[in-house]
């Protein structure tokens, strides 16, 4: 999410834009002078579609993304996995462009494509030479409302999704534990459901389920188009108005009214035994505010806290558990702030052979308590800020990364201005704010701790859980 854009105009940029020529019957205006062409632009079409343009003229390619403000957390009960299944089915064609046509065209002109689903959004993207932007826009606009599904292509695709489930979850003990931790963390909010769905519900998903979900949520007024690369805002605006502008808005588009979490009050533990867990591990998640719902400075403080506690080898968790106490092989923490509703602050650790998960947990608790009690040092805070702010510069090296950051931010309710001001807001956080974030949000009653073991402990070994 963090980034900056004070990019200097380069001679390369000036040349490419100034010498651009019109080809074909142009329903769009000539490109403007190059001067302002490194600015990120954001505008909306009359049908409600949001458009973001991120110019990067180094190579004549573009990344074109369509983000829908819908994810697994918007699924009706009983059809978990339908958001992700629909994402797969979006490649099955429309009346105008039958199954496979879009992919066939991309496979011919040299475009990469893919799609992804999270709890909050679903995205589709193409990476391609710049002159094909109208083509990919045309296909995306067409499948925004024109999807046609038949059982002949829906049912084999459901088997494909079940194999994706096998690959990502069933074959991975750590992923299986992650599902259980999330399910225990969220008592009321649908974030407790896996994005890919519960297997028994995936097996029963139908063409009708997919179409009902599609008609409810896929519409220009529920979507964001991001174009990054060798384009100008004017070019994109003209094309978007002509191509996406023809798609009618859906006034009754589904709203995100998700059940919210009650205040967490109980310390929770889950344990999963998997005979393939050759390496035991520990995962913990705390319920914390997301960036869109956090108070001023709160999300920035949580991000810095995650960095100081658990990002890399200078972090508190790594130094204490791995280097000093030598009870862990690895340890870290992460805050996922780009989320519509209450999100998770997670800690993970892998014990050294001979260390019990209980002892590892006690040591983690002590590291968290120390930050909450005594706060963080000026050196730690500076280091975390430097890294996070530099990441924003590094992101500018990749048009695909920039497109993803902006798309994810807008799809979860943040604004362009919030993304732009991120580095300044991080700079403004002081050590007290970081300590307060730990005190406020890392109380253990807000958390679930998961143990992954190879086999269930024998009865006599069962230890009392400390809280």
């Amino acid at each position, binding site marked *: 999410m963090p980034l900056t854009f004070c990019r200097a105009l380069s*001679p390369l940029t000036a040349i*490419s834009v100034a010498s651009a020529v019109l080809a074909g019957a142009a329903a769009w205006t000539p490109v403007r002078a190059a001067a302002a062409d490194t600015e990120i632009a954001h505008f909306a079409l009359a049908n409600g579609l949001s458009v973001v343009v991120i110019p990067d003229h180094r190579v004549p390619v573009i990344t074109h993304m369509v983000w829908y403000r819908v994810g697994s957390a918007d699924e009706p009960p009983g059809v978990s996995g339908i958001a992700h299944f629909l994402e797969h089915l979006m490649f099955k064609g429309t009346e105008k462009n039958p199954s496979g046509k879009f992919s066939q065209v991309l496979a011919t002109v040299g475009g990469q494509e893919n799609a992804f689903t999270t709890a909050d959004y679903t995205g589709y993207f193409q*990476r391609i030479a710049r002159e094909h932007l109208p083509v990919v826009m*045309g296909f995306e606009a067409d499948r925004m409302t024109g999807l046609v599904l038949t059982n002949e292509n829906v049912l084999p*695709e459901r088997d494909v*999704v079940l194999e994706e489930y096998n690959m990502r979850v069933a*074959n991975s003990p750590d992923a299986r534990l992650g599902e259980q931790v999330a399910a225990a963390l969220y008592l009321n909010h649908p974030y407790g459901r896996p994005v890919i769905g519960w297997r028994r519900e995936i097996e029963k998903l139908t063409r009708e389920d997919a179409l009902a979900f599609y008609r409810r949520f896929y519409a220009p007024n529920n979507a964001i188009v991001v174009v990054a690369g060798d384009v100008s805002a004017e070019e994109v605006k003209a094309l978007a108005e002509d191509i996406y502008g023809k798609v009618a808005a859906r006034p009754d588009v589904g709203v995100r009214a998700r059940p919210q979490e009650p205040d967490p009050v109980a310390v929770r533990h889950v344990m999963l035994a998997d005979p393939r867990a050759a*390496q035991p591990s520990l995962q913990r998640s705390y319920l914390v505010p997301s960036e869109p719902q956090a108070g001023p400075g709160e999300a920035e403080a949580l991000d810095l806290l995650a960095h100081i506690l658990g990002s890399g080898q200078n972090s508190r968790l790594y130094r204490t558990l791995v280097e000093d106490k030598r009870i862990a092989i690895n340890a870290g923490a992460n805050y996922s702030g780009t989320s519509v509703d209450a999100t998770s602050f997670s800690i993970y650790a892998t014990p050294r052979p001979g260390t019990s998960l209980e002892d590892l947990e006690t040591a983690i608790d002590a590291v968290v308590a120390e930050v909450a009690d005594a706060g963080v040092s000026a050196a730690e805070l500076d280091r975390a800020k430097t890294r996070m702010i530099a990441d924003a510069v590094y992101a500018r*090296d990749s048009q695909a990364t920039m497109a993803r950051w902006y798309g994810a931010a807008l799809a979860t309710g943040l604004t362009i201005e919030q993304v732009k001001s991120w580095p300044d807001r991080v700079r403004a956080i002081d050590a007290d704010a970081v300590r307060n974030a730990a005190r406020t949000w890392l109380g253990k009653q807000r958390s679930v701790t998961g143990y992954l073991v190879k086999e269930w402990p024998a009865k006599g070994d069962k230890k009392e859980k400390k809280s």
Partner: protein
Amino acid sequence: MTVVVSMLRILARGAHAAAALTLVAGALALPTAPARAATAVERIVSPGGIEAWLVREPTIPLIAIDFAFRGGSSQVPANKAGLASLAADLLDEGAGDLDSRAFHERVENYAIGLHFSASRDYLSGSLYTLAEHQDIAFDLLRLALTAPRFDSDAVERVRAQALSGLRRASMNPNDLANRSWWAKAFAGHPYAQPVGGTLETVPAITADDLKGYVHRAFARDTLKIGIVGNVDAVAAGRIVDRIFGALPAKAELADVSNAQPLALGNKLTVELDVPQSVVLVGGAGLAQKDPDFMASYVLNHILGGGSFTSRLYREVREARGLAYSVHSSMLPLDHAALFVAGTATRTDRADEALAVIQSEIRRMAESGPTQEELEAAKSFLKGSYALRFDTSGKIASQLVMLQLADLGIDYFIRRNSLVDAVTLDDVKRVARRLLMADMLATVVGRGPSVAGSGATPAPATVPAAVPARRDGG
């Protein structure tokens, strides 16, 4: 000496060619990219005599440097398998007068990205730094390469991490399939050993082994360097000498023989109680310098390469729903050339998935692709070439890969015409040559496919890493 080759202009021309296809929706079109200021690949030789390839990139205030030394895990004795990998993981764990903690603090205080990794043929690394911190970054890299400490606490800590990864991998069907395939196909050759070693060999590696490996393998004569940033040839020469100038002139590498994959025509099975089985099939491919290499690359793209339209994708995934992931690739290594294909599928249909893959390989061997498939593949490969150059890090990595493959600094220009020159006859000839031959298959999982064929239980040791990808085309 400086040789300048225009790269991006050529890429733009490739995109023009693709645009000739009549695929435009409606009457709108974006203009194709105009010719640009000659963003160029320069070959520079430093005052100290070290060659590097340079791309000047003035728009982003960062410098990316990629490099590689020849001689990865194939330089390591079998009883020390994992040595190159462990050394790579330890280079930033203390060097010169900086212990591990001081080194990591400095890296992070200046937001430097520094990564090392080993493959069968190479030890490679990459450096990412903001231009304002470049001097500190260059010195850290120099220390890591010329004065790594291998302090005992760091060695034990990183060794424990490696062993933990190996324990995890010992129950992972992908890792097991790879490990058993390579062990069988290259029995007796250094390629047989897993890059990351095994639960038996990694504990046997000593600090002296690590120092010895670095001393033998890190030298100027096998070094390839790619630089991207706002620096000119003179500055780049100084950077290269500053980082790499103190390395020994010559590496002391053991001879590694060229090898052909063995045991072709066999099927290995490894029993593992997992919901999804992994299937791997492989045989001989073509060396990158083979005149038919590009034809084999195009052939593979049609059969099982990157897009959502390959034959394997259509038959295994779309038509039958057997798998989420199915792929094939050409792997030109330094001492062997391979073709491999694989998928992950539900156990009760693993035999069916393997049969479909084998039948698609056979069908391609017997009749080759259609003219239409060939044209689409060529058009894709030309049109998508520019996507390999859209970040500084990707460009730096391409610069090193092309040097390792010894394809010449003008490859950027020639590459799309090499694709263009591939004919249907070429592809059919290569298909017969490669795909008609026997292959070695591995299936890891449970159920009838495995149980019925004299399966061996998965040993509690370690998997091979996937071979380093040197994408030939």
